[in-house]
Each structure stands twice: as structure tokens, then as C-alpha cells.
């Protein structure tokens, strides 16, 4: 799923809209996942819904939309698949996870700059010194803002 087949330039393939085809497969996959996860839930009857009725019905409709998209990708010309970048998602999502795993254990003083510096490297233009200074200043601002002014119970510093 993470790799792009950006070879839609040639019109030799019967798929005339690769993006729609991939989107349709994506929907089908999600619908399948939802159906699989709800197999154990009672459907109930139309008169008295069980917990599984709506999720399963919606999953079927979602799958139907997926099939419609795949079908139309053979009939109508559309966009090619865009290339997926690696750097952005890895650093952005990674820095969020870093924040998540450090906030409760070490506090905002550690988690804040860590997440910001790691996140900054999602862009090739990142400069360490500039980002580090900015991160420290902003973390201080955040502590004043969230802990002092808004009184939210966010851990500031926990030393091991």
C-alpha cells in the first residue's frame, strides 16, 4: 500500500484511472476489515437492531462504493497515482509518537523540544541550532500557557 506505481503515463493498461482503482481497493480493504471485526456481533432484526447491524450494513455499502470506483476506473480517464513520500510521514508521525511516549514519563520539558526537533527533520530545510532554540523557547511558552494560565494538569518535568 505504501508504494506507488506511478506508471500511469502509458495508456497500455486497461485501468484508465489508477487513482480511482487504488481508492476502490482501499475502500474494499477497509470494508473487509470492518466485516471481519464484526463477525461476532449479533445482527438483530430489522425491527430490533443488534450491535452488529449498522456497522455491517455500512461496511457493505462502503465495499459497494469501492467496487463502483474500481469499475469506473476501467471506463473513465482519471488521475494517476501520486508518489508517496517517506520522509514526511516518518518524521511527523514519529515525532508525535515520541511526544506520546515521553510526556507522562519525563514531562513537557523533555517531550516538547524532542517532538519539535524530531518533527522539524520532516523538512529537508531543517537546521538544528535554529530549531533547537525555537523548540526550547516554545516549550517554555507552552508551559506558561497550558500549566500556568489554563491550569491544565500536563506533567512539566519528571526526573527519573
Amino acid at each position, binding site marked *: 500500500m505504501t508504494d506507488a506505481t506511478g506508471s500511469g503515463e502509458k495508456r497500455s493498461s486497461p485501468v484508465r484511472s489508477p487513482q480511482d482503482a487504488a481508492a476502490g481497493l482501499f475502500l474494499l480493504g477497509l470494508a473487509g476489515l470492518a466485516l471481519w471485526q464484526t463477525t461476532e456481533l449479533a445482527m438483530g432484526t430489522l425491527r430490533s437492531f443488534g450491535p452488529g447491524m449498522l456497522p455491517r450494513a455500512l461496511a457493505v455499502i462502503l465495499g459497494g462504493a469501492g467496487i463502483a470506483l474500481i469499475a469506473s476506473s476501467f471506463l473513465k480517464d482519471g488521475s494517476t497515482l501520486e508518489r508517496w513520500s517517506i520522509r514526511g510521514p516518518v518524521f511527523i508521525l514519529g515525532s508525535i509518537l515520541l511526544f506520546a*511516549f515521553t510526556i*507522562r*514519563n*519525563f514531562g513537557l520539558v523533555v517531550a516538547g523540544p524532542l517532538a519539535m526537533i524530531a518533527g522539524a527533520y520532516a523538512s529537508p530545510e531543517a537546521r538544528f541550532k535554529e530549531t533547537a532554540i525555537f523548540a526550547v523557547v516554545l516549550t517554555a511558552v507552552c508551559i506558561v500557557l497550558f500549566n500556568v494560565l489554563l491550569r491544565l*494538569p500536563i506533567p512539566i518535568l*519528571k*526526573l*527519573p
Partner: protein
Amino acid sequence: MKFLAKLAFAAAALAAGSVSAQTYPAKPVTMIVPFAAGGPTDVIARIVGEHMSRTLGQQIVIENVAGAGGTTGTTRAAQAANDGYTIMMGHMGTHGAAPALYPNLRYDPTKDFEPIGLAAGTPILIVAKKAFPANDLKSFTDHVKANADKLNLAHAGVGSVSHSTGILLGSMIGAKPTMVPYTGTGPALNDLVSGQVDFMTDQIVNVAEQIRAGTIRAYAIATPTRSPALPDVPTTTEAGLPQYQVSAWNAMFAPKGTSADAVAKLNDALRKALADEATRKRLLDLGAVLPSADEQTPAWLGAFVAKEVERWNPVLKAAR
């Protein structure tokens, strides 16, 4: 993800465990409230917590960790460091009804906590829509028994106080009305006022003003004595359903293994809060019932929790 969560907890325990052994409390105490802010338990926690902060000389910081009928926050409290700096405000649901309602519960109310003390209870009332065709509790129960298949009992979601107490009422009357689930007290009460549903049971603080205004009617209050907030509403004993005795109690707990010293200090601060005139008045204005002196000990609370778990278990399992 579970592994990482465990890792995080282990690290957190390590980090918190190393706080030097100064006299307790040396820093702010976090009190987990396992419900959204603004609800009855949250309000009681904040009123009591405010006075306790003054006694302890350290701020009690309320942390709302809502979810799954209060069990998410309670699980977190059970797994928190037992250094006395994390405590919680539990209630009838999290420490009484939850074991029967949630088969995969990750804590045991009787084993995973050090009881600190009972804070306040809010009495349960039996209320019905304005047009309900009964003038007293006796004719109410007769009507419910005779028309159970036509009547609708509203509740604020599986695991809520109104859900558990509603099931208890049904089982005591010997009727199984249709249960209509709502997401919270507000929407349920709204449909009771507008007559879409027929009756419900809920905490006094949620329904008192509606009863006074006459938009819904009250049949009985499930406490031994009448409430000064609603002196006209008879008790269930007076009205002929004496076995229906139930209150949404709120009590403080610390994680298992919290030092006796910390528990004693917290209990002392709680007692002082409950003895304070202004705090008492605030709680009584809500219609709350305050514990008597002998009900304020940790030991009493421990025994009480065990009794509550045993009481709810058969009732709620039968209804599942």
C-alpha cells in the same frame, strides 16, 4: 501498542517511586475522576478536593479520565504508582456494579485499592413523566407491573447509575419494561420531560429542579429518611417498596499498597472537609447525603465496597 503502554507504565512507576521520602505530601496530589467534568461525581470531587487541598497544604489536581462507564479512569488509578500522589474518586458504578457489567474488567474493586473514605452519596429517586397515570408509588408499581410491555424506562447508557438502579427497580417490582438507552442524563431527562419515555431512576441532583418545577413527577426517594432538598417526596419505606434502598455513593480510593501514613492523612483531610460548614452546605445543596462519623473510616468503606459488589452482581447478571 500494549507492550509499549506497559513499558510506559513501568517507567512512570520508576519515575514516581523515586520521589524522596519527605513528609507526605511534598507535591500536588492528582485525583482521578473517571467521568467527564461537570457530572455529579466530578462536582463532589471538586468541592471536597478544594477543602482537602487546604488541609494537606498541597493542591489536589483533578484529572478527568472518562470512558467505559468510569472503568478506564479506574483502571488507570489501579495501575498508578502507590506513592500517595495518585488517588481517585470512585463511585457506585466503578466500585460496585462494574464487575458484573464488564466481564473483562482489569481491576478488582475489593483487592486493587486502599479505601480512603466515603465522601458523599446522592440519593436515587423514582421519577416519571408528568402524565404518568399513578398518584403514589403503590399505584405506580401496579401500573408498571400490569403494562410492562408498553412502558419505556430511560437510562443514561449501559453502566450508568440510572441503568443499574433502573434494572434493580425492575427486578424488585418484578417487571421488565423496555429499556431505552441514551448517551447521558441530559438527553434522557429531556425525553422524559417531553413525555417520549415513561419513567426512570436517577440521582437527586439531576432531577430535583425538574420535580420542583412540576415538569416530571417523583414517586419516592430510595433513602431511609426524606431529603431536606425535596421534603414532599416520600421514602421508599414509607411508600411501600422498602427493599429499594440505593444511593450513588462516591468514595476516595488509593492504589493498593499506598502507605498507611498517606491514607491516614488523606482520610483526615477528607473528614475535615466533610466537617467544614461551607463545604457541607455546598454538598447538602446538591441533595447529597453525608456519611456519619463511623462511616468515614477506611475500614468501613472497604467492607461497604465488598457488600456493594455482592449486591449488584446477581441483579445485573440476571438482566444481561
